[in-house]
């Protein structure tokens, strides 16, 4: 955000880091760009005549509806649980994050099992001659995606609200604003970078989603990508549509950058946490009801349904193998989160030290992987790691030695792919938090003789702690749920909970997949719970000196 501070070389370690990350993230993009060597005009003619117009329209509609719903739920609930006191608020503060642990396609399947024409709830409605909602539509998919993804916005907004200086709100109120007006005119504008970052994650997830849209029969661009690849046998065309998708994502990111640039957001002086207002009984219980309903719709009822299915259909499948799946999921999630967060910190820090446009562009490229459908990204990564292996084996042959491939089928390839995919998930919270640390602190530390590394370690890292945990937990949960990359790059025998879900759902055994789906959700609630405690508790980080 700032210009290069004095004393920092214009080319340093950071530039090497950023260059490396950009090269890494650009790997699948290389495969995409290379696809433009072969334009299949027959397929493109078919796509533009019959599919793309619908797919562009439905992608836009889905994106808009999901974003509106996720924004409303995320920001609304975050403000409610931050600014007010009502029965159960301490519980809701962290519980409202937990739906993050539920894979969206699992949530989608549960809703279809209830509300589709052959569903259990649908049968009940029909018996009483009640109108039956047509759920296998864009609206059904939007509903599911919004409830599965709103926690990204909720988390970002709540972190921002908690760390917003109460003084700003008090000033607003002193100037005659009611608490509601203060929300719209002070709190939301101050939290805007965080909220936009949260919404961007939701948008990327929607663009890359294939599971939910396939279940609900929505024609989005990701469906077009799969159709070109799997049905029309044209992977280059699929890559070209992916390029279109990536372009749209970059546009969205530029918009975010523009929105952010218009204001600087730093914390000055000691911030006072916002003191929640006690609500009158009727609004208080209404607030409790709203939070309960959201939690029930997004998590409790679906988990109960999965529990019933797991008990009735999958009980026998619960063998000691599940410890193995569990352990693999946790190990991959943990190591992936560690590596991704580490690189995201380096990236955010590099951007802070060098605010030139080239650096911003590089950062954008490094984080664009999240908007690509996972399968396209996986193909790109495997293409690149395989080329490295080919070179390695060829080099061995040159030395008259037999060198086996070093990347293919190893955890290293998996971690590279996870990093490319989820870098932006970790980058968002870290960059937002780093931007709030005023450069004056750096300057003060420098003037006291602290080195750049010392500033990072002794000033920034403690201040970034909540953001680091947030980033790690988000990436961890995302890796638990991730499928195409895990499938394509896992070493032999490295089955995880997510690949268990795939084995069953790919074979049409959705209800039997309830057991691993439940396990993924449970495994994801642990970091979500931890995240909620660490990040959104009012006594964390900035506000530690002034517990309430």
């Amino acid at each position, binding site marked *: 955000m700032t210009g290069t501070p004095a004393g920092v070389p214009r080319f340093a370690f950071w530039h090497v880091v950023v260059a490396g990350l950009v090269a890494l993230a650009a790997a699948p993009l290389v495969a995409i760009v290379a696809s433009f060597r072969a334009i299949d005009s027959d397929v493109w003619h078919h796509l533009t005549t019959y599919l793309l117009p619908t797919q562009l329209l439905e992608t836009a509609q889905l994106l808009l509806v999901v974003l509106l719903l996720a924004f409303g739920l995320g920001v609304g609930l975050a403000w409610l649980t931050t600014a007010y006191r009502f029965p159960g608020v301490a519980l809701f503060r962290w519980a409202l994050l937990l739906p993050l642990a539920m894979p969206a396609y699992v949530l989608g399947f549960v809703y279809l099992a209830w509300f589709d024409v052959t569903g259990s709830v649908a049968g009940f409605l029909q018996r009483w001659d009640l109108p039956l909602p047509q759920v296998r539509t864009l609206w059904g998919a939007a509903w599911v995606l919004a409830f599965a993804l709103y926690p990204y916005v909720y988390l970002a907004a709540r972190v921002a609200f908690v760390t917003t200086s109460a003084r700003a709100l008090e000033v607003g109120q002193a100037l005659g604003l009611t608490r509601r007006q203060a929300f719209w005119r002070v709190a939301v504008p101050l939290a805007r970078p965080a909220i936009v970052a949260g919404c961007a994650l939701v948008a990327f997830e929607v663009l890359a989603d294939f599971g939910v849209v396939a279940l609900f029969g929505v024609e989005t661009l990701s469906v077009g990508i799969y159709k070109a690849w799997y*049905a029309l046998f044209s992977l280059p065309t699929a890559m070209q549509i992916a390029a279109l998708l990536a372009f749209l994502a970059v546009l969205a990111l530029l918009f975010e950058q523009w929105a952010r640039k218009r204001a600087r957001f730093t914390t000055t002086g000691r911030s006072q946490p916002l003191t929640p207002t006690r609500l009158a009984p009727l609004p208080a219980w209404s607030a409790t009801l709203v939070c309960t309903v959201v939690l029930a719709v997004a998590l409790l009822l679906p988990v109960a349904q999965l529990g019933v299915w797991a008990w009735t259909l999958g009980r026998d499948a619960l063998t000691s193998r599940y410890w193995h799946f569990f352990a693999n999921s946790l*190990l991959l999630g943990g190591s992936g989160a560690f590596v991704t967060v580490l690189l995201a910190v380096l990236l955010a820090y590099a951007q802070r030290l060098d605010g030139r446009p080239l650096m911003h562009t590089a950062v954008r490229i490094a984080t664009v992987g999240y908007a690509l459908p996972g*399968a396209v990204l996986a193909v790109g990564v495997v293409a690149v790691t395989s080329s490295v292996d080919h070179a390695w084996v060829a080099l061995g042959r040159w030395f008259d030695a037999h060198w086996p491939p070093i990347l*293919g089928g190893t*955890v*290293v390839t998996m971690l590279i792919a996870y990093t490319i995919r989820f870098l932006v998930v970790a980058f968002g919270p870290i960059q937002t938090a780093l931007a709030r640390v005023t450069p004056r602190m750096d300057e003060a530390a420098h003037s006291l003789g602290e080195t750049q590394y010392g500033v990072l370690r002794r000033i920034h890292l403690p201040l970034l702690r909540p953001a680091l945990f947030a980033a790690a937990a988000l990436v961890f949960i995302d890796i638990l749920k991730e499928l195409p990359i895990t499938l394509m790059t896992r*070493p032999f025998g490295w089955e995880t909970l997510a690949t268990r879900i795939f*084995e069953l759902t790919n074979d049409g*055994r959705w209800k039997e997949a309830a057991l691993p789906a439940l396990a993924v959700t449970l495994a994801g609630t642990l970091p979500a719970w931890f995240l909620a405690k660490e990040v959104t508790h009012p006594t964390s980080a900035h506000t530690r000196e002034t517990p309430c």
Partner: protein
Amino acid sequence: MQRRTFLTALTAALIAAPVSATVAAETLTVYTSRNEQLIQPVFDAFTKATGITVRFTTDKDGALIERLKAEGENTPADVLITVDAGNLWLAKRSGVLQPLTSDVVLQKIPAHLRDADNHWFGVSLRARTVMRHVERVRADEIARYEDLADPKWKGRLCLRTSKNVYNQSLVATMIADLGEAKTEAIVKGWVANLATLPFPNDTAVLEAIAQGICDVGITNTYYLGRLVAKNPQFPVVPVWTNQQDRGVHVNVSGVGVTKHAKHPELAKRFIEWLVTSDAQKIFAEQDHEYPVVEGTPVSPVVARWGTFQASQTPLSKAGELQRAAVQLMDRAGWR
């Protein structure tokens, strides 16, 4: 301190993972899109019969083929197992398979269920046919796929999405048998008769027929087999279509030796074992499929449906004409 222990353990695990991936000489490596619960019993029986161990990884067909292409001669895979003839055709065209010379296999697998150049072989068979509600539709009311285009079925037909590969192969073989124009007219008739939006899977189509949302549909037989095995009263039965002319559309799960197999002789032994009656019985019994080798018994559920005349159209047509089929279904508005 704790943190350091964790990091050490993590590093150790990361280093150990590729090392533990090196394997004994007598191990066959398989990439399969047939899922674990269906293929593990087959591998177990093979290991028991021959002493050869099998390691495998699962993924979707397209991803496995791309992975084989990218890995090239470094691939660890000896054998590729996929479902659907179109995928087998694609694997051959992508150059990831090599021909297998085996008289046993040629003799046991009928010609239309394998590749003409011996790159792939169908090892289990499934019929994709018309399903009817046992009471609401009489057995003599429907005889051919074409009949479902008749306006008499308006609002009574359920279909799975056209994005499904089995529907694509069905339509592709119809194009091979009937020509594109005639097939398009039939498919348009189906779309006009739909009772509700296409479903995401075959099981949902069968449940919709059972619950009265519609009366007829088109699905693979083993999905019905699973439902009937769970509930013998499940009120849907198959119609053996086109018995007077081209026969019921069938599809296969199949197998091929990868182009850069490190153990081609093990791969050959595996594929030759797959056409023994022991192996064929596993395919027939465990998931209500049909064997490809004559004389293998089917599951009791499947036996009740009786026998049928299967289409003799070469399955490679499903691959050759898949793109045309997909474009046709898009034109017809089949979502």
